[in-house]
């Protein structure tokens, strides 16, 4: 439900970047969203579409790259990817897990028309 506030933040960041860089036409905005983030990509895309209506960003695509959860196991010192939150290392079944990726939430890059 906070996707609208986030869509607004994305719009602010992108507008600032395009005016600073003198970009005239934007094709797409690339986001990275960690799977631990409480954001639903479809909702975000929908809110972005509404909020950019009648602005220079209208019709700009929002491309979302989901970052899977990556854990590091303190017992076997291996890293592994997980589709959802887990507590158990699939290799050794022991150890404390540290989440090392999956909380990303950033505008990564802009696709500019040549």
């Amino acid at each position, binding site marked *: 439900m906070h996707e609208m506030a986030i869509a607004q933040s994305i719009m602010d*960041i992108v507008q600032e970047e395009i005016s600073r860089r003198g*970009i005239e036409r934007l094709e797409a905005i690339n*986001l990275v969203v960690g799977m*631990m983030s409480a954001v639903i990509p479809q909702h975000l895309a929908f809110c972005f579409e509404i909020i950019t209506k009648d602005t220079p960003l209208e019709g700009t695509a929002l491309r979302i790259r989901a970052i899977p959860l990556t854990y590091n196991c303190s017992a076997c010192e291996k890293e592994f990817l997980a589709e959802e939150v887990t507590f158990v290392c699939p290799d050794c079944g022991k150890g404390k897990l540290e989440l090392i990726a999956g909380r990303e939430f*950033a505008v*990564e890059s802009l696709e500019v028309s040549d």
Partner: protein
Amino acid sequence: MKVPVVRNILEANDRIAEQNQELFAQNRVFVLNLMSSPGAGKTSLLEQTIDHLKDKVSIGVIEGDIASSHDAERIAQKGIQAVQINTEGACHLDGNMIRAAVGQVDLSSLDLLVVENVGNLVCPAEFNVGENIKVMILSVPEGDDKPLKYPLMFTLCKALVINKIDLLPYVDCSIEKIREAATKLNPEVVIFEVSCKTGEGIQKWCDWLELQLGS
């Protein structure tokens, strides 16, 4: 052509939260961001905490709700400074809302400011408001599966208060399961078992909170 940018989407909020934090530090106020589902007992825990600490600690409260000033009135009855924020539908408090509300509080007279967030286990976890610590409440009727379903909030909180333990005989909820899952998500989390109804466990929670203020 791809132009790299790499900017955190929540940076604007984080920046305001940092400014709030500076303001709180200048006034030597300790700020607690209190989060839970609707009805888990945030206002009840606050009332109990105020009763236990108000002779020793000067407390102020910012109440966040989608609508109504019901909670701020409950707190004001205790003789405590309380400001109500109505988010008009938004599911969380953010740094900007707190910045606006802080103007209505005499910060210099406070030791502790509690921000009672909108009842929600998802969104409030994403938005810092400038707090020193996040504390969450889980009440036993909600069930012991909640740490698995809402991992982010459990991961970020410094303390977890398990409320309504007086209802344990009537609900299918294992405190052990909550403890196990919460500790796996967040090995440092401090867990309290309380009943705001009977007062059980409240003293322990208040003792811990008082220690946080001093540190």
